[in-house]
């Protein structure tokens, strides 16, 4: 006996073996259909005895194994059911012949047999035969089960009679020696009369009877017989049979203890009739059966004593196996016993002891095994290990079995079977084929063995001729085991992957195996590794902005409170998900990924694009090549949203090594993202700017480069103006419906006078709406007017005439610092460079435009143009001072003008001649100006005055004054050589003192001599002897009332040699008082006092009108009280008349 039945279990000992075989030509499917129905009758309750007979069916059984039937009766074929097809009665004899032939094979052990004939009709089918049943067809055979039951009953009768026969003939007669096939030759010539021999015969027979009892359903009897057999055989050291007796004992005990069976799923026992309580009782009625045969007396011995405890069962199994082990030829028996014991232990949940039995089973040598048997053996070992919960061992043996399937010695390797078995080992190596299971954190497992297994799967699937499968497995290997692959292995794996994909590209579809196993797709999330995903905002010039005023529409959540922390909180959460910028329909938008190539060589990623949802999106895939171990590498994926709405970036797709993958962001470990949901607003127009001036690389400081679409740059002299022509072109697909322009001077230290940028937008607006492709031009005037005052060091250099500089406060710290430089005050080249340095002025022009669907939603776009002006100095006013003019209403403004340029310069002012300045030349220019009535300037209204700070107010006032002065002066400069001209402003140069000087005093004094106003150089004529009326008029333009004041008129004569003669009492006499009193003059009012003088001699007289010290009320500035000096020429009347 060489072929073990690995499916055996302990309870098989109580079954009777029936072989079901086809005779002649029987279609396989039909045979198995009938076989199944027959096998359904696995237990039969015997009439009148309440005993159960268990039947084991086999459709294939080696006659060789049958020879061991005496050793263990359940190995004996006791029944034969033959199935045959017989179409006509002609064939019948032949069929019957065959049936008999079949019977011959098992004739030595057969109790009974049946033949089931299908298809035969007619006379022969009519006859009633017990051993043959006729059925018209395979479909029409309803009573097959009934037939089988009858058959089983007949077997039982034989069995029972055999049992009784063997059980009773113990006395007297010579007991035959039962032996196993290989023993037969050993007993030749043995003394059959010895006590030893007799005992041996007795023992073996007892054991045999025990088997029969067990089969016949008399468990207790069997136990007793086994016990007796064990004792008898132990005495004679008949180890093989002792082992069998012990095993029998174990089997019977197992049947008693575990009526549910030990084989698990394979057995279809009906538990209702095999309750443990019944198990004991079962035999008793049987003992008192109608046929009058009394049961063995030993049944009265307590069954608990006979039956082995669960622990003992294992002990006895061990003993039995050790006995079997003594016989080389009993390997199969030993192996089967091991298997049976393991099954029992599995039920007892004693896994470790079970593993010892299995370990033993592994080493049982059954001689030369065929490859198929080896596979079967390893598979069964694997199954048994699985049964006791040793999953790893189970996987190990399954893998060995799989390898056996494709052993080099096999001519036709079974790759399919190998692959199937390998798949079954996966759980044992805690390996699932779903890459999602590996995404959580780092991979932890037996990488070495897992990798090996994956390699084997790849190879097996390739040999199976399923390249798609190998690609999937190889992708999986690469994706999940990347961290464990050495550089060399990485190279090999990727190379073979590329080889495979060249024939069968890998995709994202689920591969379903024929047995239903689904292989999920393996996205290459590690090739490359994506570390962060960032949705990028549109370039500044294309960013949409929401019109503030329209916000009210969607402020449905607005609460009556201006601020509520609760609402803010909710909003915050919402924001977390949604990124607070927008993309625009139809405009290319970008997502930046930081990727990393973990491979030791260059990685080529093709067709990398975005996976999105929510909005129709046109992804524009990119191909990239990442250098080896690249480190973080930015990759920008682009696409165009085609509709408006909320878009979610779910992931990206790649194609690496010929495998396309869809990588979803949610599954990526260690990914940094700031949100993937963005709103796409309806399309907006696009504007492109071109200018007449050259572009520059300068960027106004607080702005970043990207904020400005472009910057123009121009070089101008201070005071110059320049026209900038801007062409606006609609390059989008929507009409531009609105356009606004604003400008902002970027914070600069320089003070700018006048309007820097000015434009007229009406002309451009008249072209709206601007259709795509159309353009419109706009002219912007650039006017630079910076401070014209000379710089400190320049002043220092020029300040060599010792005249104090009135243009700057004396206490300026700069001045002190720079003092030492006064030593080297020659206007050196270096010095020149310093004061001729170029200042820059920057501003931003902002175009707001909108149109199309986006405008309806309340969005607009912003386009910024930077204007960068390098301002070169044109002229400097190094010093400003005033000289009083002859009239109190006028004065002279003295300007020291310096030409810092290297060219000749002409300066002109209103009603003044041109002044030509050579390079680096400084000249003084005197301009006579009327004094200014600053009070007449528009005053800021009370409201604004109240809210602005006083300093600012003061500045504003000064600015206004400066403007006024400037416009009066109208100073222009021209570079004749460069043909450039511009204005110059004194605004920045004027200081308080100069301003005061230039200001028309609020108290206006008018002196009229003889009714004629007398001022400056006007000489009033009068006649000697005539009374000259002198009228002094005070007009109060200040805000407060002035006075009372007392004025004294002092006449004097100027001899023009520095001597003034005040002793004129003889020459001039006052008519009335020489003192005038002016009462309080209220604001905006005037007061006149009149007096008279009488000149007694001819001559030139001057009148000095002085305030009396006590009356002036010194709180008002002195300048207000300067009265014009009066020059009177007294002449003789006749002379006059004569002239």
């Amino acid at each position, binding site marked *: 006996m060489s072929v073990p039945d690995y499916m055996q279990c302990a309870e098989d000992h109580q079954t009777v073996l029936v072989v079901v075989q086809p005779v002649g030509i029987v279609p396989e499917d039909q045979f198995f259909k009938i076989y199944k129905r027959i096998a359904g009758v696995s237990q039969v309750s015997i009439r009148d005895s309440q005993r159960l007979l268990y039947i084991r069916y086999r459709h294939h059984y080696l006659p060789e194994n049958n020879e061991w039937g005496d050793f263990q009766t359940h190995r004996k074929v006791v029944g034969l059911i033959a199935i045959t097809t017989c179409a006509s009665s002609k064939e019948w004899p032949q069929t019957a012949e065959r049936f008999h032939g079949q019977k011959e094979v098992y004739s030595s052990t057969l109790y009974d047999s049946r033949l089931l004939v299908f298809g035969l009709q007619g006379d022969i089918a009519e006859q009633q035969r017990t051993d043959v049943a006729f059925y018209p067809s395979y479909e029409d055979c309803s009573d097959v089960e009934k037939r089988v039951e009858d058959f089983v009953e007949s077997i039982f009768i034989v069995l029972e009679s055999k049992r009784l026969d063997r059980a009773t003939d113990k006395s007297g007669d010579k007991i035959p020696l039962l032996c196993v096939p290989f023993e037969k030759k050993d007993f030749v010539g043995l003394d059959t009369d010895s006590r030893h021999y007799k005992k041996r015969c007795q023992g073996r027979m007892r054991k045999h009877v025990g088997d029969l009892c067990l089969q016949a359903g008399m468990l207790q009897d069997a136990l007793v017989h086994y016990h007796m057999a064990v004792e008898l055989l132990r005495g004679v050291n008949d180890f093989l049979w002792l082992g069998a007796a012990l095993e029998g004992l174990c089997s019977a005990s197992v049947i008693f203890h575990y009526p549910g069976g030990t084989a698990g799923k394979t057995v279809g026992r009906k538990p209702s009739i095999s309750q443990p309580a019944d198990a004991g009782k079962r035999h008793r009625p049987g003992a008192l059966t109608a046929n009058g045969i009394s049961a063995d007396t030993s049944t009265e011995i307590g069954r608990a004593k006979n039956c082995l405890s669960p622990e003992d069962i294992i002990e006895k199994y061990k003993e039995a196996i050790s006995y079997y082990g003594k016989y080389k030829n009993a390997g199969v028996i030993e192996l089967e016993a091991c298997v049976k014991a393991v099954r029992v232990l599995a039920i007892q949940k004693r896994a470790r002891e079970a*593993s010892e039995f299995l370990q033993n089973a592994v080493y049982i040598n059954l001689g030369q095994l065929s490859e198929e048997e080896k596979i079967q053996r390893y598979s069964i070992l694997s199954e048994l290990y699985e049964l006791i*919960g*040793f999953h*790893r061992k189970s996987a190990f043996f399954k893998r060995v079995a799989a390898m056996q399937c494709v052993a080099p010695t096999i001519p036709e390797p079974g790759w399919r079977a190998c692959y199937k078995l390998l798949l079954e080992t996966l759980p044992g*190596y805690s390996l699932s084929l779903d890459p999602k299971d590996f995404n959580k954190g780092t991979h*932890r497992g037996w990488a070495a*063995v897992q990798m090996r297994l994956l390699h084997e799967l790849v190879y097996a699937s390739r040999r199976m001729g399923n390249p798609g499968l190998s690609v999937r497995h190889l992708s999986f290997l690469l994706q999940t085991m990347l961290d464990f692959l050495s550089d060399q292995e990485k190279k090999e794996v990727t190379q073979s992957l590329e080889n495979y994909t060249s024939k069968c590209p890998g995709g994202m579809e689920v591969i379903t195996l024929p047995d239903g196993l689904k292989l999920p797709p393996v996205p290459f999330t590690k090739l490359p590794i994506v570390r962060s995903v960032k949705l990028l905002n549109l370039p500044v010039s294309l960013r949409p902005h929401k019109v503030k005023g329209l916000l009210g529409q969607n402020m449905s959540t607005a609460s009556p409170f201006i601020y509520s922390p609760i609402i803010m909180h909710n909003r915050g959460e919402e924001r977390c998900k949604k990124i607070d910028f927008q993309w625009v329909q139809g405009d290319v938008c970008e997502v930046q990924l930081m990727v990393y190539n973990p491979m030791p060589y260059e990685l080529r990623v093709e067709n990398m694009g975005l996976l999105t949802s929510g909005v129709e999106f046109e992804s524009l895939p990119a191909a990239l090549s990442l250098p080896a171990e690249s480190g973080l590498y930015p990759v920008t994926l682009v696409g165009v949203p085609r509709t408006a709405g909320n878009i979610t970036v779910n992931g990206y797709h790649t194609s690496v090594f010929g495998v396309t993958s869809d990588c979803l962001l949610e599954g990526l470990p260690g990914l940094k993202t700031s949100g993937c949901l963005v709103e796409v607003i309806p399309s907006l127009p696009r504007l492109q700017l071109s200018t007449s001036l050259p572009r520059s690389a300068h960027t106004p400081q607080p702005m970043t480069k990207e904020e400005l679409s472009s910057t123009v740059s121009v070089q101008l002299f201070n005071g110059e103006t320049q026209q900038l022509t801007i062409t606006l072109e609609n390059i989008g697909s929507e009409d531009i419906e609105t356009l606004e322009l604003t400008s902002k001077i970027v914070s600069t230290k320089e003070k700018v006078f006048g309007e820097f940028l000015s434009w007229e937008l009406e002309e451009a607006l008249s072209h709206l709406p601007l259709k795509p492709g159309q353009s419109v031009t706009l002219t912007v005037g650039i006017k630079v007017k910076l401070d014209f005052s000379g710089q400190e060091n320049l002043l220092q250099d020029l300040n060599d005439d010792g005249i104090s500089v009135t243009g700057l406060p004396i206490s300026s710290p700069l001045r002190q610092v720079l003092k030492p430089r006064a030593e080297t005050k020659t206007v050196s080249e270096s010095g020149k460079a310093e004061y001729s340095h170029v200042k820059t002025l920057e501003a931003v022009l902002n175009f707001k435009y909108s149109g199309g669907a986006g405008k309806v939603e309340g969005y607009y776009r912003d386009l910024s143009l930077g204007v960068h002006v390098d301002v070169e100095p044109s002229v400097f006013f190094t010093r400003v001072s005033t000289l009083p003019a002859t009239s109190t209403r006028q004065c002279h403004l003295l300007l020291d003008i310096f030409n810092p340029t290297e060219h000749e310069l002409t300066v002109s002012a209103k009603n003044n001649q041109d002044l030509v300045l050579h390079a680096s030349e400084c000249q003084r220019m005197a301009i006579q100006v009327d004094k200014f009535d600053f009070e007449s300037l528009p005053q800021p209204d009370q409201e604004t005055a109240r809210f602005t700070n006083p300093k600012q107010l003061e500045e504003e006032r000064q600015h206004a004054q400066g403007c006024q002065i400037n416009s009066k002066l109208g100073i222009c400069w021209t570079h004749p050589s460069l043909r450039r001209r511009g204005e110059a402003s004194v605004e920045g140069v004027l200081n308080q003192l100069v301003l005061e000087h230039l200001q028309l005093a609020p108290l206006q004094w008018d002196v009229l001599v003889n009714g004629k106003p007398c001022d400056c150089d006007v000489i009033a004529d009068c006649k000697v002897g005539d009374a000259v009326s002198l009228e002094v008029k005070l007009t109060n333009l200040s805000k407060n009332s002035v006075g009372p004041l007392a004025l004294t008129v002092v006449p004097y004569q100027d001899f023009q040699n520095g001597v003034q003669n005040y002793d004129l009492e003889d020459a001039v006499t006052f008519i009335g008082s020489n003192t005038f009193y002016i009462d309080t003059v209220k604001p905006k009012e005037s007061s006149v006092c009149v007096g008279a003088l009488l000149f007694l001699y001819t001559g030139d007289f001057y009148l000095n009108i002085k305030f009396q010290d006590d009356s002036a009320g010194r709180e008002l500035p002195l300048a207000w009280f300067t009265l014009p000096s009066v020059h009177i020429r007294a002449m003789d009347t006749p002379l006059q008349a004569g002239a």
Partner: protein
Amino acid sequence: MAVCIAVIAKENYPLYIRSVPTQNELKFHYTVHTSLDVVEEKISAVGKSLGDQRELYLGLLYPTEDYKMFRKLHNSFTDVMCNPFHNPGDPIQSKAFDGIVSGMMVQTG
């Protein structure tokens, strides 16, 4: 004689595995891996019968002459775990531990 020493994390993956004949490492991987079945069985048995009592030493899988082996290895393992820079659960990469292991292999093997 020790030919292979492995330290296994409780989540069933090797923290450390080293064998002397380096040419057939995979074989030892398989051996250690399959022997874990027994360890698992033992651990589950301890949990059932002894309850709170924690006996960390499970006994020998196969009898060995040199019983100081476990103590030595365990002491070294404790040292590794005491290293504040070691992250429990990471593979063991310690020179000292390596040294002890190779010492045991050389001494016995």
